[in-house]
C-alpha cells in the first residue's frame, strides 16, 4: 500500500495460530479490564487483539484489600482473579466487545481441569471469540493446590482438555515461577497449544514495617512491570527457541523499544500490561513507535524483526 508522496507503509501484521493480527501489540490479561475502561482514551480498533481479564466458571470475589503494593519499578498485585464469572461475561461483557474488530482473546482459569473444560466448551458456543488464552498460573484444588503451570504433565493435561472442548485456537500462558520454563512450554506445545504466551507475574512479597504485616492482605502477590523485563525477555528467548508455535511475549514492556527487544528475542507478538495501568495510551504509543522504528530502519515488515537477534 504505497501512499502517494509518502514513504511506503510498513507491514505490521502477524499471524498467531490462525489469527491475523493487524499489528503484534495487545493488552495483557487483567490489566485491560473488559476493554470498555480504556475506550475513553484509545481506539480499541487499533489494537492487535483484545485480551480480557481472566474469567472463571463462577463469579470470583477476589482477594481482600490491600491488593496492590508498589515495588521499585514494579507492581505487586493480588487481585485474585476477581471477575464476574462466565455467565455475566457472556451476557454483559461480550456484546460490547463484539463491536470491535480486533480478534477477541478470552483468558480462562479453573480450579480443576473440569472447570477449564466447561469454560472452553461454553465459550466456543458464543459468537465473537477468536481464541482462548489458558491461564495456568492458578492452583489445582484437586492436587493439593499445586499450580497447574509448574508441572509439565499438569500443564499438558489442562491444554489437552481445553483443546478437546473447543474448536478455537488455544494459547497457553505460562508462569515464570519454574526451574525450566522450556519444559513446560514443550509439554503444552505437544498437548496442542497453538501459541504460547509468557510471562505471567513473578511471585513476590512486601512488608509494611510499621504494622509488621504483609503489605498485601494475601501475603504473596505477582510482580509485574519494568522490574521483571530482563527475566521475561530471557524466558521468551528460551521458549521461542524451544518450541515451533508462535510466542506472545510480555513482562515489563513499557515502550516500543522494549517491544522490539521481545520481537528480536523471538516473540511473534507482545502484550502490554502494567504500562497501560500507568499510561492508558501506552499500547497505541507502542504500536506507533514500532511503526516508526521499522520505517527508520528501512524495514518493510515487522516479521523481519521476529527472532532476528544475532548471537
Amino acid at each position, binding site marked *: 500500500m504505497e501512499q502517494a508522496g509518502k514513504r511506503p507503509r510498513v507491514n505490521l501484521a502477524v499471524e498467531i495460530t490462525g489469527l491475523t493480527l493487524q499489528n503484534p501489540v495487545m493488552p495483557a490479561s487483567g490489566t485491560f479490564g473488559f476493554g470498555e475502561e480504556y475506550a475513553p*482514551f484509545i481506539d480499541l480498533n487499533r489494537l492487535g487483539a483484545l485480551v480480557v481479564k481472566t474469567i472463571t466458571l463462577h463469579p470470583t470475589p477476589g482477594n481482600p484489600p490491600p491488593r496492590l503494593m508498589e515495588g521499585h519499578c514494579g507492581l505487586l498485585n493480588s*487481585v485474585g482473579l476477581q471477575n464476574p464469572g462466565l455467565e455475566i461475561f457472556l451476557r454483559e461483557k461480550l456484546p460490547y466487545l463484539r463491536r470491535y474488530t480486533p480478534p477477541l482473546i478470552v483468558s480462562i482459569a479453573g480450579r480443576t481441569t473440569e472447570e477449564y473444560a466447561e469454560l472452553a466448551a461454553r465459550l466456543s458456543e458464543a459468537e465473537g471469540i477468536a481464541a482462548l488464552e489458558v491461564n495456568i498460573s492458578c492452583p489445582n484444588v484437586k492436587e493439593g493446590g499445586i499450580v497447574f503451570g509448574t508441572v509439565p504433565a499438569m500443564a499438558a493435561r489442562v491444554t489437552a482438555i481445553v483443546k478437546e472442548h473447543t474448536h478455537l485456537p488455544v494459547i497457553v500462558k505460562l508462569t515464570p515461577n519454574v526451574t525450566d520454563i522450556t519444559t513446560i512450554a514443550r509439554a503444552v506445545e505437544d498437548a496442542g497449544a497453538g501459541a504460547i504466551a509468557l510471562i505471567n507475574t513473578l511471585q513476590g512479597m512486601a512488608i509494611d514495617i510499621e504494622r509488621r504485616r504483609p503489605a498485601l492482605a494475601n501475603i504473596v502477590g505477582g510482580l509485574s512491570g519494568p522490574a521483571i523485563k530482563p527475566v521475561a525477555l530471557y524466558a521468551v528467548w528460551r521458549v521461542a527457541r524451544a518450541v515451533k508455535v508462535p510466542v506472545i511475549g510480555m513482562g515489563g514492556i513499557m515502550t516500543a523499544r522494549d517491544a522490539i527487544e521481545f520481537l528480536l528475542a523471538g516473540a511473534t507478538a507482545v502484550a502490554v500490561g*502494567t504500562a497501560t495501568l*500507568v499510561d492508558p495510551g501506552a499500547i497505541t504509543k507502542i504500536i506507533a513507535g514500532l511503526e516508526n522504528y521499522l520505517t527508520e530502519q528501512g524495514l518493510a515488515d515487522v516479521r523481519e524483526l521476529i527472532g532476528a537477534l544475532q548471537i
Partner: protein
Amino acid sequence: MLQDLEAEVLASHQLGQDVYLLRLHAPLIAEAAQPGQFVHVRCSETFDPLLRRPLSIHDAGNEGELTLLYQVKGRGTAWLARQQSGQKINILGPRGRGFTLPQNKRLALVAGGMGMVPLLFLARRALEAGNEVDFFYGARDREQLYQLETLKAMQVNLFLATDDGSAGFQGPVTKLWEKYIPERSYDRGYACGPRPALAAFACLAGRASLPAEVSLEERMACGLGACRGCVTALQDPSGNKYYENVCTGGPVFDAVAVYWED
C-alpha cells in the same frame, strides 16, 4: 469527560512542614470536576515510582485552575514537591464518584487531617447551591490546620478541633461534631479522613439516622476500574460483604454501604 493531559504548574506553595498546595492549569479537568473526585497524577520521569498517585481535587476555579493539596508521604509526593512553576505534570481525571450535592439544605462536613482536601471543594459548591455548611475540621495541632484563611473567607460555619487543644475543641473532631448533631438537625453529613474517624462518623450518623457519605482511600494502579486493585469491602443491604473499586465505585460511598469491620 475524563482527560489525560499535561498540566502546567502555576505555583507550588509549601503550607506546612511536609504539606504543599499545588496550583495547576488544567481547564478541561477543572471545568468537569465535581467535589469528591480525584485526579491521578504521574509522579516521575522514570519508572521509580511507577504508578500514578491519586489526589483529591481541592478546588477548581473558573480560569481553568485546578488546586491540589497534599502531604509528602513517600517517593511520589516527594517528586511532586520538587516540581516548580512552568513544569508540566501528567494528570488523568476527573475521576471517581463524588459527593451528592443537594440544594438549600443544612450540611455537616467533617474533616480529619488531610481529609479537609476534598471537603473544601464540596463546601464551595454546596454554598453555591444554597446550602448551609457546618465545616468541622480536626487535626493533631493548630500547625496542622491548613487553609483556615480560605475556609474563613467562605460562608461556612467553621468548627475546629485539635488533639492537643492548641486550637478549638480538644479532642477528636467527631466528638466535637457529635455535640452539634441534635441541635443543628442536619440534612446530610460528609466525612473524609483517617478510617477510624470515618467509622466513628458513620456510627454517629447512623444513630442520628442522618444520610451520610464518606470518602475512602485505597492504593490504586489504573484509577480507571480496569485492574480491580483498589477495592474496598462494602456490604449489601442484607449485610453480605463484597468488593467494589474505590476508583470508579468511589472514592465517595454511602456510609451505610461500607463494611466497617475489616
